[in-house]
């Protein structure tokens, strides 16, 4: 823990980080209906962790989200996105045709598909943002 952060900053940060992460999830999952989506949510989520790292130290943040985990999470989001696309292909629809997810009610399928791929985007963006942050702060490739 960095001793330099004054107690006020630490207490306020502790209060702030959970709402930031919660807001990220709101932007993520309400993105279908309002402004938002995976990219914005991922950036907000990463910003919450970055704030935590700035006040409590990089090493503490790395204990929460180690770079090795992030290096797996980043491709996982892409794979989730592609899996939705491939599911359509496998069931005889076109690539990324969300109607395949619920043939009975294609509109519901579109909702579900959008929710899933945006979650994939969110995971990848958050992981990549944090990897960039770790890389710049350590000046060495994270491992």
């Amino acid at each position: 823990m960095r001793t330099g952060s004054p107690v006020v900053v630490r207490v306020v940060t502790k209060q702030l980080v959970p709402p930031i992460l919660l807001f990220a999830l709101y932007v993520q999952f309400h993105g279908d209906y309002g402004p938002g989506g995976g990219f914005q949510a991922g950036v907000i989520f990463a910003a919450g962790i970055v704030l935590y790292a700035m006040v409590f130290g990089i090493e503490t943040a790395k204990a929460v989200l180690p770079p090795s985990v992030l290096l797996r999470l980043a491709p996982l989001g892409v794979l989730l996105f592609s899996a939705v696309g491939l599911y359509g292909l496998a069931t005889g629809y076109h690539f990324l045709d969300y109607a395949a997810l619920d043939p009975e009610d294609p509109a519901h399928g579109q909702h579900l598909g959008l929710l899933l791929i945006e979650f994939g985007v969110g995971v990848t963006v958050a992981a990549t943002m944090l990897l960039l942050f770790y890389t710049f702060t350590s000046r060495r490739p994270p491992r």
Partner: protein
Amino acid sequence: MSEILLIAPVLLPLLIAPLVVMLGSQRAGWLLAVLAALVATLASAALLPALGEGPRSYHFGNWPPPFGIEYVLDGLNTPLLLLTNASALLALIAATPATLAGRFAGREPVFYALFLLCLSGLSGILATGDAFNVFVFLEISSLCTYGLVAAGPRPGSALAAFQYLILGTLGGSFVLLGVGFWLQATGTLNMADLAQRLPQSEYGEVALAGSVLLLLGFALKSASFPLQQWLPAVYAAAPWPVTAFLAACATKVAIYAMVRLALDVAALGEAARWLFGLIALVGIVWGALAACVQRDLRRMLAWSSVSQLGYILFAFSLGTAAGVTAAMIQFFSHGAIKGGLFLALGPARSFDDLAGLREREPWRCAMLTLLTMGLLGVPLTAGFAAKWALLSAAAQAGHGIGLGVVIFSSLLAVVYCLRLLEPVWLRAPQRDAPQLPRHAMLLPPALATLAMFALGLTPWAASFGRPAAQALGWAP
């Protein structure tokens, strides 16, 4: 099934790339990458037989164009898809973990993922029928190229990658602006739709400005004269399998985008073809002259690429079916020859590294010699077929200046090709070149050499001329 083939060459590398990072093993990553490139190559080869049946389209998410994104594969881009995937396959076979030897300290999977994403981006530029998609794929391939170049073994590799990043981002911004202007002028992003609406747009100046910006962006990415300065630095700095891949197809994809957007979609016609002819002819001479005076082996070959890419642009600038045929032959011929040369040179970076190759590695020496003869345009090789087609197309079109320039640059090619062969054949070995696994060293350049002779002896590449000219509307 055949529908899946239309998207497989782009999707497969894109989907395998995250898998390679997830697995995290360098050997498995290499195998997966080679497999992905192999299947993508086979898929694009399987598209060729139906080339004469006209363009085929795939609608993503089943959204009909112009609202959704479609891929359109026609006579012009399908053969180039095969060229791109095949050169990636050869380069990846050469890029074994042993070849990369310690450059990445355990992060080789990321290298393979970048390579696959770069391949997917280039294939995407070729396959897509959506102008904004072209920008997205351009950025995907460019960002990955910066990473791949920075992975090079020279101390200056990171700097070269950074300089390329600055220029490449400029080029990408021009492309984005151009697409934005087109959208503003027509309200659509679909290429077929744009082709109809651009001439009727009430904002003709906006549309023209968009076309100029797009041309500027892709002229930079294709290293067309006078925007070629980044190319030698990048070829010299990148790891050698990456240089071979980039030399074989990356700039050609940008030339395709230029031709497609300016001559097909925007239908700029005479004016754009005049401009293409001008920058191509100056580039042909400039590149050949610069190649003659380079001290660095790879920079010499890079400048020769500037000259050879000029042939392609010049062939398109003729605006005839014969010109398109010459361009298609030159696409494949230069891809096989220059890609093969960089693969055969391997880690050799200076002329001294080649000294005494005749005794040290006779097979490598033989392939280098044959490929250099192809670059020269010796009969029986693809280089000859390409130059012959280009000269006859220029003669048919009555383009006397072009004829003279191509012949003059061929004479200059003799100078720089002999500079390459002199240390190989005449100098005594000076020091030990770095050792490499034999299969990685010999198989890919051998395949490229075979391809060069196959292209020279058969009319295979010329058979794409007619479908490609039809795609541009220059042949019935």
